[in-house]
């Protein structure tokens, strides 16, 4: 297999594996946030803000993998 083939496979695996953990983590965060909002509807605003901040943190881990995938894609 050529160099380019390895790089292409690596780019696909990078972003693919990166999104698994992100999906699980964000689903977990949203589930708990929804439960909290259900128990305490008055605190929805605070919970929503904290939820969005937490989601962005988790998303950024996937974005690291995405950036690596783009860098690899540029080198094919």
């Amino acid at each position, binding site marked *: 297999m050529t160099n380019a083939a390895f790089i292409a496979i690596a780019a696909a695996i990078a972003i693919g594996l990166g999104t698994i953990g992100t999906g699980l983590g964000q689903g977990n965060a949203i589930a708990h946030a929804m439960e909290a909002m259900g128990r305490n509807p008055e605190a929805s605003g605070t919970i929503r803000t904290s939820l969005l901040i937490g989601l962005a943190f988790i998303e*950024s881990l996937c*974005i690291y993998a995405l950036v690596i995938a783009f860098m690899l894609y540029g080198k094919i």
Partner: protein
Amino acid sequence: MPTETEAPVGHAVEAAKPFFTFDSPSAHDMMFVIWTWVALLVVVLVAWAARKDIGIIPRRWAGVFEHIYDWIADLAHGMMGKEGMRYVPFVMTIFLFVLASNWLALLPLPVLGPAEGEAAKYSIVVSEHPWHFFRWEFHEFQLEAPTGNLHTTLALALISFVAFNFFGLRKHYEMARSGGGHGHDDHGHAPHHGAPARDPITSLFTGFFTWLAHFIEPTPTLWKSLDAPMKYFLVPPLLVLFIGLNIIEEFARIISLTIRLFGNIFGEHQVKFWLFVAMGMFAGGALVSAQAAAFAGVAGNALLAVLLWGSSVFVTLIGTLAGFIQAFIFMVLTLSYIAHAVATEH
């Protein structure tokens, strides 16, 4: 590279390759700078146009800016108490600039400018300009917003880094100057007098060393919470570990801020761009190629083209929310790093 055929008595010295070279910036890089100025002008002009709306009851645009200011001030209060108000203008500036440039990345204007890389294959040449500087090409959706470039986001992250370190140093200087307590705490009580107030030069040094001491951060708590013989063995290696971790965290903050903002904006644009390119292929295929007609028929190709176009519009709308959230996250993280640097346990 030294050749293997000749080997004089002293071996040939390889010419040193430079670590990196400064190429002159390409025209595409120049467009990023131009769009940075566009983002700045957008913020400044909207703020300037809002001047006459200021009043006891602010009207439209001044109301928007006041709403943003109050919202950031609430965040700062939640993190730092009353002295958070000092840092709100700086953080708000960062938020407005990042928001403006994230939203500028979404504009579906057919931008006249140079196309490079992948985008060049999908461009239609309109005119060959006599300048040799660059060739104007008509292309869709070339990403030229400032935050779509690693350089701008790195610059913003470095600004945050310098800012929170500077604010930490200044806070420790002021604490040393006023003698061991903040000037006033949340309720405006008088300062503690743990030590006599110092002159400026001494407090510069004292403040600097107090600030350096926060790099050992979890260790004092650990020291207090462990028992007598064990803590002398456990804590010193943990001290070294914590100093290393804190220093690495400082750099990890810069890198994570950079890549989070760049990755969101660039990735969002790539999705939109390739959906639009695919739409173009199907739309063109419906009219031009017999193979595409055999694939799904003209109507099928047209339907696919419309669906892909709808997807790219949908991605653009999602990108509005994502751009806002990323600007908010950048602002909140900068604010929390400042709060961490300025925190005192008195």
